[in-house]
């Protein structure tokens, strides 16, 4: 115990004596959550749509009014012929163009089906899909009002009524901030500890430590302690930013959040130490830590892409990524107010123990 404390104490001193790294390890997560939080905003607002109206009738105008009334869509350009469509897309004047044929108002009265055309900018697929969905919704709303006027129908046979639980406005910040917390904590923790052992190997101090009676578990556990404190501080900052800057609600218990977060932090720190005890130099350790944590956590944990829609192989991969479970847990705590996850919590605890033991086993007490 005294040896563990000695190593923890020494590691604390290293951190305190290096104010720049300390600042980086506190400010970087803060910057990241702010930057990503604002950048990865998947809610579409003020989508610019161009209008090419060959009809210029009261009917086409009312369609346009209906379309822009919600505020999701703004009419950003009024076109006069088809040749102008493409240049406008290239200059990013709009994400979509809606075209009313010259016989739009006539056809409404005369034909069973009236067509309008929507042209989308496929270069930004996500926005394009959202615009299309939105315009379809507008169209069906208008259809309903025509149906009522022309045929006296009050309702269409089937109507879906959607009610979104836990995140009624479908604000993307509400599920992105927990994801960011997982990503940032994983990355920062692994990066922090990845150099902790490699640095001592590089500067030669490891040679001195290894001639003392200290053993691998004492070194590993002693080194985890101080970084745990920093990581806990980072996590607190991230969740506070989430709550007060991005307005993410907190429906569950802060204690549950802290508990599961500590287990997750422990996993990330142990992973960093494992990398560090295998890597020969600090640089190799840093790069390995980034590679192993960043992309899998970002892409395969369900942070951005739903796991259910991944290919089967990747779904299996996602099961060994700690962030997959952590993300589900904290989204549950924060948004659903469910605080108890025995199975996933058990998996995370198992992962943390496995990684710590592996790091201890891989820590060489000899130079050869």
């Amino acid at each position, binding site marked *: 115990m*005294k*040896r563990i*404390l*000695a190593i923890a104490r*020494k590691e604390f001193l*290293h951190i305190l004596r290096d104010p720049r790294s300390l600042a980086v390890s506190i400010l970087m997560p803060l910057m990241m959550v702010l930057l990503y939080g604002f950048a990865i905003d998947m809610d579409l607002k003020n989508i610019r749509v161009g209008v090419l109206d060959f009809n210029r009738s009261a009917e086409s105008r009312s369609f346009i009014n209906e379309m822009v009334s919600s505020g999701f869509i703004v009419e950003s350009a009024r076109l006069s012929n088809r040749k102008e469509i493409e240049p406008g897309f290239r200059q990013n004047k709009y994400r979509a163009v809606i075209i009313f044929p010259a016989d739009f108002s006539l056809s409404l009265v005369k034909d069973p089906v009236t067509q309008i055309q929507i042209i989308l900018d496929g270069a930004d697929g996500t926005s394009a899909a959202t615009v299309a969905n939105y315009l379809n919704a507008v169209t069906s709303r208008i259809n309903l009002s025509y149906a009522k006027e022309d045929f006296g129908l009050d309702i269409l046979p089937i109507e879906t009524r959607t009610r979104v639980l836990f995140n009624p406005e479908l604000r993307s910040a509400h599920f992105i901030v927990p994801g960011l917390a997982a990503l940032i904590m994983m990355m920062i923790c692994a990066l922090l500890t990845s150099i902790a052992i490699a640095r001592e190997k590089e500067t030669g101090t490891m040679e001195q430590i290894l001639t*003392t009676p*200290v053993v691998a578990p004492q070194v590993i556990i002693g080194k985890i302690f101080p970084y745990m404190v920093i990581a806990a501080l980072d996590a607190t900052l991230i969740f506070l930013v989430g709550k007060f800057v991005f307005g993410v609600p907190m429906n569950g218990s802060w204690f549950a959040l802290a508990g599961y977060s500590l287990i997750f932090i422990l996993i990330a720190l142990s992973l960093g130490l494992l990398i560090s005890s295998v890597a020969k130099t600090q640089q190799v350790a840093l790069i390995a830590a980034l590679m192993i944590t960043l992309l899998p956590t970002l892409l395969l944990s369900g942070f951005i892409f739903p796991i259910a829609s991944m290919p089967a192989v990747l779904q299996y991969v996602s099961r060994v990524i700690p962030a997959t479970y952590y993300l589900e847990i904290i989204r549950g705590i924060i948004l659903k107010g469910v605080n108890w996850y025995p199975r996933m919590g058990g998996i995370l605890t198992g992962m943390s123990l496995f990684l710590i033991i592996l790091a201890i086993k891989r820590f060489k007490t*000899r*130079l050869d």
Partner: protein
Amino acid sequence: MFQTGKTKVALLLEALEKSYGKIKALHHLSLSVEPGQIVGLIGPDGSGKTTAMRIATGLLTPDNGSVRILDIDPFIRPRQAKELIGYMPQRFSLYPDLTVSENLRFFSDLYLVTKHDRIERQERLMKFSRLGPFTNRRASKLSGGMKQKLALMCALIHTPSLLILDEPTTGVDPVSRQEFWNILRELAEQGIGILVSTPYMDEASLCDNILMMYEGRIIGTGKPEDITTLFPDKLLEIRDIDITEIKRKLQMKYPTLSVQRFGDKLHIPYSDEEQFETIKSAVPDRTQVNPIKPGIEDTFVALMSKPNITADYISEESG
């Protein structure tokens, strides 16, 4: 050579073999350090000194052979053995961002030294090493000599019985080197066995026993005052202002001659008066040519070029 009398041998290495891939780092290396004895390992870089010392501390495992620290095998009871050893690696390996006392505190904690003992020992070591005024200075801000003294203090904080010091004075100024050796002598007088390596031949004369290492073997061993008797021939010294030219001419005329340059002097081994006269006649009249007593370095160079003879010598000694 390895008598075990009433007192236990501080360090005993027997028939160590070690290879790194195809490179053989140690050939059948044996040595012993008695309590209170300073044993010097001398030899050029790459001769296996560091490897031998790392095996003695348990940092490396030998391919073959045995290690005993006060009769304890460090590969069977590593913790007990480590308690007995104080080790200073070749590279400065304390924490530059920690202060003198923080470094000492760290190592004393790793050795589970009690607070009472630590405070008392730190005070004594500080006085002893005269690092006292710098207790709160960061290690990175110390001079080379002071750094080495601090490293020595850290290796001494748990009162080891055996000190293993890998080139502790390399890159240290002459005054600090002298001071460092005075400290070593005092420690030896307290009964600590010391194994120290050095590339400086002049430091070898400060040891109780010298082991000359070359290419993983011990090529000569003895007390500093005796070891020069291993020099197989006689030795002459040539002094001249244009020593480079003389060396070139001699080597052209007698390619088999071993000509060693020491600053503005040449040292040449010779076998008899006849050869002495031949060499003398080959240099200008103004040049001084005198027979001299070989030094430790001369002996090393001579033994280095005749590994077979000295290898036999060793096996006789240890057998």
